[in-house]
């Protein structure tokens, strides 16, 4: 069902866990659809110095959270805001069609985390 890249990220998810003193936190998903993804960011000089995630989710959710953190780490806030769920899926060499909605929400969680960071800057 899942391709080798997805399975690799599922088996060895990168950057899992919390950032205790995160600058921004974003959570998306809900229990009725089955996947929840939470992203933590550490922003230093406008750059994402650290990105971590937690998930309650299926193989696709685990893998997309992992891939997202890889894509986002080191990017500027502006660049990171441009990462889409689709970018994550593409970086994973694709997800099964039925997994493109509920389970592929990592970029949304990142954007929420960055908005959270922004709201704290004012």
């Amino acid at each position, binding site marked *: 069902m899942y391709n080798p890249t997805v399975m690799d990220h599922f088996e060895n998810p990168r950057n899992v866990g919390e950032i205790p003193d995160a600058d921004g936190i974003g959570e998306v998903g809900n229990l009725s659809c089955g996947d929840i993804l939470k992203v933590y960011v550490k922003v230093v000089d406008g750059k994402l110095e650290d990105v971590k995630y937690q998930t309650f*989710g*299926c193989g696709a959710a685990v893998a997309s959270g992992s891939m997202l953190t890889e894509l986002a780490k080191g990017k500027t806030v502006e660049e990171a805001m441009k990462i889409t769920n689709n970018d994550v899926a593409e970086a994973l060499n694709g997800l099964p069609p039925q997994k493109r909605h*509920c389970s592929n929400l990592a970029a949304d969680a990142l954007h929420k985390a960055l908005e959270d960071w922004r709201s704290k800057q004012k």
Partner: protein
Amino acid sequence: MRKIYMDYSATTPLHPEVIALMTDVMKNVFGNPSSLHSFGREAKKYLDEARQKVADLIGAKFEEIYFTGGGTEADNIAVFGTAYAHRKKGKHIITSAVEHHAVLDSCAKLAKSGFEVTFLPVDQYGMVDPEQVKKEIRSDTILISIMHANNETGTIQPIEEISKIAKEHDVFFHTDCVQSVGKIPVNVDKLGADLITLSSHKIYGPKGVGALYKRKGVRVEPLFYGGGQERKIRSGTENTLGIIGFGKAAEIAVREFDIENTRVKGLRDRLIKGVLEKIPDVRLNGHPEKRLPNNAHFSFAYVEGESLLLSLDMKGIAVSSGSACSSSSLQPSHVLTASGLPQELVHGSVRFTLGRENTEEDVDYVLSVLPGIVERFRSFSPLVGRKTV
């Protein structure tokens, strides 16, 4: 890698004796059982033998068994066939919220085409209350359909009580015994059903073949029209090879009933005990006692079922899950939802169903890898600490 199949409620491998017989029949018997010549008569002889064996499996009469293309088809004939045959008498049907989709969706379809359907709720164990069945019966109720044992949780319904109520009110009673037959006693007179669904591939027979038991005198309308095979209930040249395999599987199910179910229940109990001891925040779903002897169904708090399924699969262990993400429809299990399980625990559910080829070593292997897998996913679950089981 070690491979352990613990998904026997999804399907079973063919019993070696079934393979032997089917191989022989495949080579030597090809006639159409409706043909009058020797080729046809030979096929008919095998077909009759199979019918008798399936009848013996459930204490039915030879002529009360109608072969179908599987459990789904038998369920459809039972539900639509009864509704259509007795629509002049009434338009009300009673079923439960935890039926297999073959019954549930058939009833839902009838509800959209002029019939009225009551979907009975269930308690926390997935159990139907016979009193509630009684309460819902109306003067125009024509059919009650309640499964014997649930395919997900393994919960066994109080079928004898429900069939008694149906009989008292002169309502036809159908019960889907696809999961129960071969695992717990299924006897047509004890269960008191008018219609019973069976499927071959859950009892080590081939796929795509099943049977409808129809008590003598009960009228159902056929869904297929054609050559009038199976006494017009199911037209179409019989799947002789499949039916013969089914017959053999039925014979073995009777012969090995005690020894096999005692053995499997021992393994299942060992699995449940081990999981509950080794892993915190686990719930055993379904009824603690009134459940199939081969079924262990758990919800692991904070963890999603498809992830568990995939990780177990990577260790060679095959199971299934009721989570939304693990189903093609993306719907969480209707059975667990109807049993009032919180969403999180529905998504975190995993079903282990044991069978012939499992050993104590298999169970111990599962118990050696499962705690680590659950622990790993919990280590990065955002839900840990939010709720408890």
